[in-house]
Structure formats: C-alpha cells, structure tokens
C-alpha cells in the first residue's frame, strides 16, 4: 500500500493547488482524458425500479456473490485457500442468475445429460434413422423368401432385433461401478471385453458404414443414370423428329414399337417386347432382367438403329461404365470436408423420400391392383412359392434394415422422460416394421403377375419402373439428393472412427483423408461396375455387422453381467446362446445363398 500513501499525498497537494486556482469545478474530469473518464451510463429503460421487480436476489445471496467474486481476484487459480467450500455455496436449486440491474431468475433444473425431446420426437428420430435404403430391397427379399414366409420373417426379425436393442440399452445401466452417463455402446463393449471389444466393435461398425456407403454409391449411380435418361428422353429426343418417338405409354402395339428407330426400349438388353407391360393408363412396369434370367442389370444394350445422337448419349451415359465415375467428381470433394454439419441440415430429405415412396407405392398399387396367388411349395410360371429356402437372404437384408444398435443409446439419451425409453423403443420398432411390411407387401402384391413373373422383382424395386415413369423419376430424384447429402455424413463417421483410432486425430492431414476417401470411393465404383446388386451387398454387410452388434455382443454382455451378479439361470443362458447361434448362422448361410 505504499503507493497508496504516496498517491494520497499527491492528491492532497493537488487539492491545495485547486484552492489557489479557483478554476472551474472540474474535479472529476481532466479535459485531456475526457473520453476515458466518461461516466458509465445505463439506459433508463434498463434500470429496474424498486417497485415492480419480479424477483430480487436476496441480500444474503448478493453479499455472498460479491464476496466470492472479490476473493477470486485475490489469489491465483491454483491456490485453494480462498475457494468457497461446499458448505458455504448454496445448493444448485437455490442458484439464481441475476443481472446487476436487479432482476433475477432461477436456472432450469439441471438433470444430468437428459434432453428435452418428447416421446414423439424420440420415436420419430429412431424411425427416421432406421429407415435406410434397405427399404428398396424389402420386396425383393419377400420374393426371395416367399410371401407368407417373408411376412413372418419380417415380424420375427423385428421382434428379435427389438429384444437385442433393448439389451443394448439396458447394458449400460447394468454397470453400477462406474459412471456411464456419457458412454456409448462401444464403450460398454470395451468395459466388458477390453481393447479387443473396442477394436472389434470399431471394425464391425466400419463394416456397416462402408457397406452402406457402397450401397449408396450403387444406388446413386443407378438413380443418376435414370434421371439423366429421363431428362434426355423428355427433352433431347423431342428434337429427333420423324421416328415419332414417344414413350411406350401409348397404345402402340409392342411389336411396332420395337421396330421403330430410337429408344424403343430403354429397357436394357431386351428386344422381346412381351415383357413390356403396356396398359392404357400409362403405368408401365418392366422386368429388366427377364431376358438374361437373373443376371445383374449392369450392361445396357439398347438398340438404336439409326440414331447417332442417342447412341452417343448411350455411350457416354452408361449405368455401370461411366456414370459411377461422374459421381466421383461430384462426391469426392464433398467427402474431404472437415465437418459435414452442413449436410445434416438436409436430414429432412430422408423422411420426405420415405413418405414419397409410401405414396408412390400406394398409388401404383391402386392402379395396378392386387395379383396374389398362393402356391405353397412349387413355383409356377408367374408366382413364387410361399415358402422358399432362400429366406436367409431376407433375414440378411432385415438385419441391416432393423439396425440401430450402435447409436440407440445416444438417441434415447435425449428423451425427456427416461422411464418411457423402452416403451418408445417398442413403438418405434413397431412403426418401422409396419412401414417395411406395408411397402414390401404392397409392391409384391401389386406386381402385375400374369404378364410378368414375380421373380422379376428387382433388388431395387424402383428398377422395375422404367426411366420414363414420372412418379418414379421424382422418387429417384428425391433419393438421389438425399443420398448425396447423407454420403458425406457417412464418410465423416467412417473417417472419425477409423482415423481417430489409428492416428488419434480425426484429421491427421489432407493426404491421409484423401487416401481413405479414395479407397472408399474406389470400392463403391468397383461395386457399381461389377456387382451392382444392392440386395446382395446389403445382406452381406448386414449379416456381418449384425453378427456383432445385434446378436453376439448384447447377449454375451448380458450373460456376463448376470454371471457377475450371480443371477444367471439356465433358461436365460440357453436363450441367449441360441440368439448368438442364430446370428452366426445368419452370416454363414449368406455365403451359401
């Protein structure tokens, strides 16, 4: 305080000076630093009057606040001497936030990590996340399994995955020794299985992500191709005059249509026209792979007799040879973004696409009517038997269709009423099952069987509609946009998990990221060129990652935790081992189908 005293001496002397020089009473301001000494001024409207204040902070609290404020200025942060002890600081529910001008309000009560989402929002979010592109393969899956079997399998798989999801949610709460509020499922796996658990869960999660990205690439090439074709047909070909090309929606007899030069069939490598369904109401359904008996729809041999323009277009716009590469130029830059939060704004497109698909399917079903016949074991020309041995293909697809186990904990964490978690989960699963059933059954049932065989149902059911169909064009556009916005998000997730665990840094350098993206994109392009069967890709990747996350880990963790608590009983053990066996069988059988 030495300088305090010297200051005061200074001031007193200057006081004397003022006496001798009775200038203006400018005690407060030197004209030179007028700006620095302006009074602190609060707008009158901001001053709370004593009378009408809603809630004033108590004097005691104000005093304590000032005290703590002051003491904190006196010592370094490392010094514990002047930190308020617990018995002095008020309890959290007594804490107020108040402005220096007088008004005060109480903080919202803070419960750990729980969010504000109502049940409805949570259910919607779970439904939205689960609705993936596997919805396009469900009708094919039903076809592979047989109608009745298919429906039963869907319901049973729904129940099974629901139970496993319930186990996942409960697994976190069964760890009582540690604080698990911020844990996700891989953390639980690591707790039980050590670093093997962490690495394996990472690996399987990557399998599902990369599988999804490959499927996306195939589908995107498909949709882009069809969209381009549609636009080309709608606009470009009108210029080609005299061949009188119209879409095969007119009542032209098929025979003559095939002979007209031009795009008689943007139906690939088919020149027998009786596979073209041509009702008068312009709702064609096609069977793309009829001519080649199940070969994948990857080559396009469209016959253009005289039209070089169309031929050129055909050469440069090929579903499996060129379009996948065009996508590279479009999507690879997007993949390299550090943070894809921009893309998450487009989440709504997913919901819109699904809803539109539902509408589309309903519309088509109404137009086409139902064509169902029940033959139990023997395939007929147009129908498939009700029970087929290829039903594991459906289970493989459904494992991925019902897969949400690696992020269900996060989704449920934000539920406002945590006690309703199980109920909301069941409702969400029920809605998802209903949606899948609805689309699968409707597409299967309304597939026009007398002219076309049920076997024609494609792995992507939109492929059964020609490129020229307007409604499916709209569906393809929606899905294309939606996938283009989800693809970078998936890439980001894969990058975070892979690079984060290998290098410890989610963006080590542009070089690493570029290499990873090239690998992923390369895989996608390769599949799009040589094996664009999304049904196949979905069932393999679904069964693989479902093996870990859906079947093995939840059951195993449950068995282990029960064993640690000495509550393991024989029925439970047998039941959960049975689930594990089912999962393993699911995967192995895929390779034999």
């Amino acid at each position, binding site marked *: *305080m030495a300088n305090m005293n010297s*200051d005061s001496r200074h001031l007193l002397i200057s006081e004397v000076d003022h006496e001798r020089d009775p200038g203006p009473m400018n*005690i407060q301001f030197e004209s030179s630093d007028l700006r620095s000494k302006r009074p602190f001024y609060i707008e009158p409207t901001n*001053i709370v009057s004593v009378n009408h204040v809603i809630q004033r902070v108590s004097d005691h609290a104000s005093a304590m606040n000032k005290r703590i404020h002051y003491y904190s*200025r006196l010592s370094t942060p490392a010094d514990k001497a*002047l930190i308020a002890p617990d018995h*002095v600081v008020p309890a959290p529910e007594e804490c107020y936030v108040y402005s220096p001008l007088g008004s005060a309000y109480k903080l919202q009560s803070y419960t750990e990590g729980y969010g504000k989402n109502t049940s409805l929002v949570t259910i919607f979010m779970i439904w939205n996340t689960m609705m993936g592109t596997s919805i396009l393969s469900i009708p094919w899956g039903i076809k592979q399994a047989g109608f009745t079997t298919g429906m039963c399998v869907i319901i049973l798989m729904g129940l099974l995955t629901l139970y496993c999801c319930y186990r996942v949610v409960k697994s976190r709460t069964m760890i009582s020794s540690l604080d698990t509020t911020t844990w996700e499922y891989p953390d639980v796996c690591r707790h039980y299985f050590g670093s093997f658990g962490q690495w394996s869960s990472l690996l399987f999660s990557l399998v599902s992500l990369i599988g999804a990205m490959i499927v996306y690439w195939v589908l995107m090439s498909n949709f882009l191709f069809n969209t381009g074709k549609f636009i080309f047909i709608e606009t470009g070909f009108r210029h080609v005059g005299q061949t009188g090309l119209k879409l095969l929606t007119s009542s032209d007899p098929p025979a003559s249509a095939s002979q007209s030069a031009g795009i008689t069939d943007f139906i690939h490598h088919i020149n027998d026209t009786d596979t073209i369904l041509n009702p008068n109401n312009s709702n064609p359904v096609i069977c793309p792979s009829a001519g080649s008996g199940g070969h994948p729809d990857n080559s396009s041999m469209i016959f253009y007799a005289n039209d070089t323009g169309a031929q050129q277009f055909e050469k440069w716009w090929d579903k499996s040879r060129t379009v996948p590469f065009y996508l590279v130029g479009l999507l690879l830059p997007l993949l390299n973004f550090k943070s894809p939060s921009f893309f998450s704004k487009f989440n709504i497109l997913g919901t819109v696409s699904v809803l539109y698909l539902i509408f589309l399917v309903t519309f088509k079903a109404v137009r086409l009517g139902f064509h169902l016949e029940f033959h139990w074991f023997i395939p007929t020309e147009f129908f498939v038997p009700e029970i087929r041995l290829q039903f594991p293909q459906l289970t493989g697809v459904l494992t991925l269709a019902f897969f949400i186990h690696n992020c269900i904990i996060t989704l449920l964490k934000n539920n406002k009423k945590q006690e309703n978690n199980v109920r909301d989960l069941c409702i969400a699963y029920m809605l998802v099952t209903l949606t899948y059933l609805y689309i699968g059954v409707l597409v299967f049932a309304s597939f026009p069987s007398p002219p076309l065989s049920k076997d024609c149902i494609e792995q992507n059911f939109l492929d059964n509609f020609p490129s020229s169909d307007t409604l499916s064009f709209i569906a393809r556009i929606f899905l294309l946009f939606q996938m283009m916005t989800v693809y970078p998000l998936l890439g980001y997730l894969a990058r975070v998990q892979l690079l984060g665990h290998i290098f410890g840094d989610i963006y080590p350098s542009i070089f690493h990221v570029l290499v990873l993206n090239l690998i992923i994109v390369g895989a996608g392009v390769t599949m799009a060129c040589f094996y664009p069967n999304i049904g196949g890709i979905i069932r393999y990747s679904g069964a693989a990652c479902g093996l870990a996350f859906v079947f093995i880990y939840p059951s195993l963790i449950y068995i282990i935790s029960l064993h640690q608590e000495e509550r393991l009983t024989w029925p439970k053990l047998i039941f959960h081992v049975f689930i594990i066996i089912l999962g393993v069988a699911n995967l192995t059988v895929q390779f034999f189908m």
Partner: protein
Amino acid sequence: CRRPLQALPFEKEPAGPQPSPWRPRRVMPNTAMKKKVLLMGKSGSGKTSMRSIIFANYIARDTRRLGATIDVEHSHVRFLGNLVLNLWDCGGQDTFMENYFTSQRDNIFRNVEVLIYVFDVESHELEKDMHYYQSCLEAILQNSPDAKIFCLVHKMDLVQEDQRDLIFKEREEDLRRLSRPLECACFRTSIWDETLYKAWSSIVYQLIPNVQPLEMNLRNFAQIIEADEVLLFERATFLVISHYQCKEQRDVHRFEISNIIKQFKLSCSKLAASFQSMEVRNSNFAAFIDIFTSNTYVMVVISDPSIPSAATLINIRNARKHFEKLERVDGPKHSLLMR
C-alpha cells in the same frame, strides 16, 4: 515550518495534551514513529488469507508452506496513517522458526499498538494454542504494555450453525481468563460471512484517533449537506469506521460495499491506476465516494436528485479541511501531512 493550530468553531476540545507551538523539533528515528499491528496465530490459522482479504492485496505465495510467514519489519501494508501490519506465525513445528522467534522476541514485540491473535476453532491442540498465546502476552507485557489485545476465533463456518454461539462463548471465557491482567476483546470470525468484516471494523474503530469527535462532526456534516447517509471508511481497508443515517435503511449487508470497492481497486491497480473517487447517480439517489482525510474515505448518499453533484462535491471538499485538522490535533504520529 509548522502552522499554529487553531481551534475551529465546531470541534471539541482534543483529548490529549495540547502541543506547544514552540516545541523544538526533534529528528526522530523512523522506526520509533511507526507503531505495529501484530497479526499472530498458529501456522495455517488463516492469517494470510485474512490479511489479503482485508487489505486487498494478492496472496503472493502458497499459504501451505514449510516455513512460516515472516514479514519484514517494513511491511508494505500500512493503515491508519502510520500503523504497519506485521504478520507472524506462532508456534510452528519448525525449530528454526522457534529459535528465530525466541531470539527476536523483543524486537518483534516492541512498539506494538495492537495485537490481533487468531485462533483456529477447529484446532485439536487447544492446550498448545493457549500456551503460545500466553507466551505472546508475556512478551507484550514486557515490551508494549499499552497494546490493545484482540482475539479472533476464526473459521467459524466449519462449526454447525446452532453450536456456534455456544462454542464461541466457551472460548471467550477461557481467553478472558487466561489474558489477565491484560484485557482482550474477542470476536468470532469467518471469511465466508460478515463476521470477519465486523470484527476488523470494531478493531479499526478503536484505533482511529479521535473517533468520537469525528463521529459527532460527521453527523453535523451530514445534516448540513442534507445527506441521507454518510459513511466513513478506513482508507486502506475500506472498513466502515463510522456511520450516520437519518432513516432506517433496508440493506443489512451494507458492509459489502467494502468488498465491491476493494475489488474495483484491484482492477484499477492492474491497469496501473489507482482508485480515487466514484459517483453513482440514478433517479432515486446520488452516492459519492471520495477521499476524505489522510486516513479515511467518505461515502455520501443523497436521495434528493435535484441537488447537483458539484454542490455536494464542494461541500465534501470544504469539510475535508476541517476533518483533517481534527485528526491532526492528536499528534503528529497519526498524520502524513507534516507541513
């Protein structure tokens, strides 16, 4: 040369002997003029924190240390004009400390104006505490028998609220008994409520020279300038020395202004500036905080907003001279203005 002192119209007769204007000037050694305030207590009883809080200076070191706080004689902490605060740890485990203490005892306890002894209420070695306290009292008796003794029972927040009065009464009785023939005043304190402040305010009140005349004149001053409230603060610590109010005020925690201003002073010193004065004005009142005498600050609260600031400030300025003379009357040792 010194101006002859004049009696002013409204001042009372000073208590001490009137110094003669013709007393020959003596050059007095610097140390003899400074009187000490000893802040003593066991290691870890909270003295450094207390000093830091009261005097608004930063705790420079970790309070948990192996050695004791050894403050040099020429401490920087001064208050009430020429009083110097010295901080000593009493009865540490350190043998070095013990020896130093014993050998320097006379030096430490000479010229002591005030002894403030801090007891930790949580201490488990009551006997030892009392033993050290008594040895300090002996030293005081030998070297500065006129010193005032204050005992602070500190860290009372660690005691259950319903037991505080009981425990304090017990301690007070013990201390009174042990202090005889010296008189000690006991306070219970905690840095987490207003008791610390009140204890130190009482201590400072007893140390201000001529505090009663100051209070009387303060009241007159307040009535003359039509102020609602006038407070007198000690300069270094902003402890309230004296307080006049014409009507009952709502705010029980009025002392908190001390913390607020000290915090503001800290901010000022960070900018290499020093706090001088403050005016707060709104439609309901105007408050002025300004330097008053060499030992004090004054805060004037006027609830008539129509009175211009300049008028009040002139009044304060004029009153300053009178109050300064009041303080000076009691002898040179309490004033900085020698000429």
